[in-house]
């Protein structure tokens, strides 16, 4: 399988603090990967670098082994096919649930294309399909602000899917969800893998176990170890990092 996303010796410091320290990571096309690590391990900064929000001080970030992601901004990375879901759900509160999905749909993003855009039947059908998937069909006309925290998480997952990205970066999707919903999310992410590449950042170990995939442990901006969940949780260094303080 070909490498979809490659981080090669990436460094980034903020005011002398090394948030990312010689980080190298390769994710294959269609792979489902969990990234875990204690607070401050650099998970969010890593996502910021992949999506072009933050530029690395040194090192390379490669998309499909050909496109240099360090030269691309946020909108550019989204247009390449990188979709990001934030830890704190950020939906557009004054828009309705349906509009949130409609605006995320994969389509021409230029100013004049959106000015003269008319919704097609295919788009309307896709919106309904996505709303059914995230179980928000009954709420489609409500403003997104009225949704519960868990529903907002689902809406954001729906928005992410609407973008139809090749790579999904998912930051703590299970936060604020019930146990049953957490398991459903894990199932959904597992079903997406194969067709999409998925990177999940998560704290909840039950959730990571349910994902049943390769795990990368991040610590102080560096990859501590990588492997199956059982393999990494047997690693004395990982135990030290998680329990030792």
């Amino acid at each position, binding site marked *: 399988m070909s490498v979809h996303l490659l981080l090669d010796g990436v460094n980034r410091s903020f005011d002398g603090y090394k948030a990312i320290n010689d980080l190298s990571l390769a994710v294959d096309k269609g792979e489902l990967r969990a990234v875990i690590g204690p607070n401050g391990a650099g998970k969010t900064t890593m996502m910021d670098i992949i999506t072009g929000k933050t530029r690395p001080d040194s090192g390379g970030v490669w998309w499909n082994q050909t496109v240099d992601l360090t030269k691309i901004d*946020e*909108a550019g990375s989204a*247009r390449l096919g990188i979709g990001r879901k934030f830890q704190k759900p950020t939906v557009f509160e*004054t828009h309705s649930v349906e*509009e949130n999905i409609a605006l995320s749909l994969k389509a021409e*993003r*230029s*100013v004049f294309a*959106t000015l*003269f855009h008319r919704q097609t039947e295919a788009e309307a059908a896709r919106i309904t399909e996505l709303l059914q998937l995230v179980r928000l069909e009954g709420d489609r006309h409500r403003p997104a602000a009225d949704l519960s925290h868990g529903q907002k998480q689902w809406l954001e997952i729906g928005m992410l899917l609407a973008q139809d990205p090749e790579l999904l970066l998912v930051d703590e999707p299970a936060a604020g969800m019930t146990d049953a919903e957490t398991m459903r999310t894990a199932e959904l992410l597992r079903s997406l893998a194969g067709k999409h590449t998925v990177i999940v950042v998560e704290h909840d170990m039950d959730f990571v176990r349910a994902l049943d995939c390769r795990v990368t442990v991040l610590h102080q901006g560096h990859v501590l170890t990588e492997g199956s969940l059982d393999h990494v949780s047997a690693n004395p260094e990982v135990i030290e990092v998680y329990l030792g303080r």
Partner: protein
Amino acid sequence: MISLIDRRMGIFLAGLFVLTVAIPVGNLAFEGKVVPSYIVSLFGKYLCYALLAVALDLVWGFCGILSLGHGAFFALGGYAMGMHLMREIGDRGVYANPDLPDFMVFLSWDELPWFWMGFDNFWFASLMVMLVPGALAFLFGWFAFRSRVTGVYLSIITQAMTYALQLAFFRNEMGFGGNNGLTDFKDVLGFPMQSDSTRAGLFVLTAIALAAGLLIARAITTSKLGMILVCIRDAESRTRFMGYRVEGYKLFIFVVSAMMAGVAGALYTPQVGIINPGEFSPANSIEIVIWVALGGRGTLVGAALGAILVALAKTLFTGWFPEFWLFALGGLFILVTLFLPKGVLGLIEDTFARKKKPAPALQEAKA
């Protein structure tokens, strides 16, 4: 699909139409006995302000760009039209110079500066009314939005922009009449400036421009682009991650808004009879923000209503107690901010909604 003319827009346009018929007819048919001539120009001025308010509401209410320099675009439009009106004076000026406006003769200039070329032509001037403010907005926005200047910082530099222009236009060497600005106009398109029918014509034209401005603004804000503007207002960073280039959208709406403000200024100059650097004053730009906030931000119609109400109050108040106007305006602003977050329009609509639907809970359950 959201309709172009919703209820509030329909009611406002109907009201505007009544005003547009009643005021000129009341003036012309009864030789100024029912509606005095000064009222025609006064209301014409209010409608210019209303269009300016709609322009600001587009950028502030929908895209969250709090411009404290929109008066500059208005004044530039006003100057562009003023320059044409100066050229129409011809040799009827005090110095009776057929080639140069009075102030240039006074400064003993020999020939017309290059940037006055073309303004003899009304259509060229009309084009400049939109192009000049649009070009300034494009240049300013291109640098500011690309550098991701937002919030208070952006507001401050827009304020600095209008202040800098005010200082520049005060200088005689700039060639725009310095301190006195442009005035003493005689005709517009051959119609004598002082005649009642010209004033009535300008009034009707302003009303049409306001209606057109409102409809254009409504068409933009109900489009997919309009929804993205709101996304930018509410969660700019998130919008970027969806693949939208935020700076392009901001630039587009900023330029459209500046052009609209320019048109408002161009209609203002002939009705007031003068344009001078005072129009660039930062206080003017801040007053526009108050109109919009008071009327109801992000509603278009509310912004227009706010401008008309405040301008009307200003006329009345400065007649009765001139020294207290600024206190009254400040007080009004505080009251609206504290008690009417949705502005006057929000208050009116809430009052009606309560009368019509006594049980809001039931209504919600049905929806």
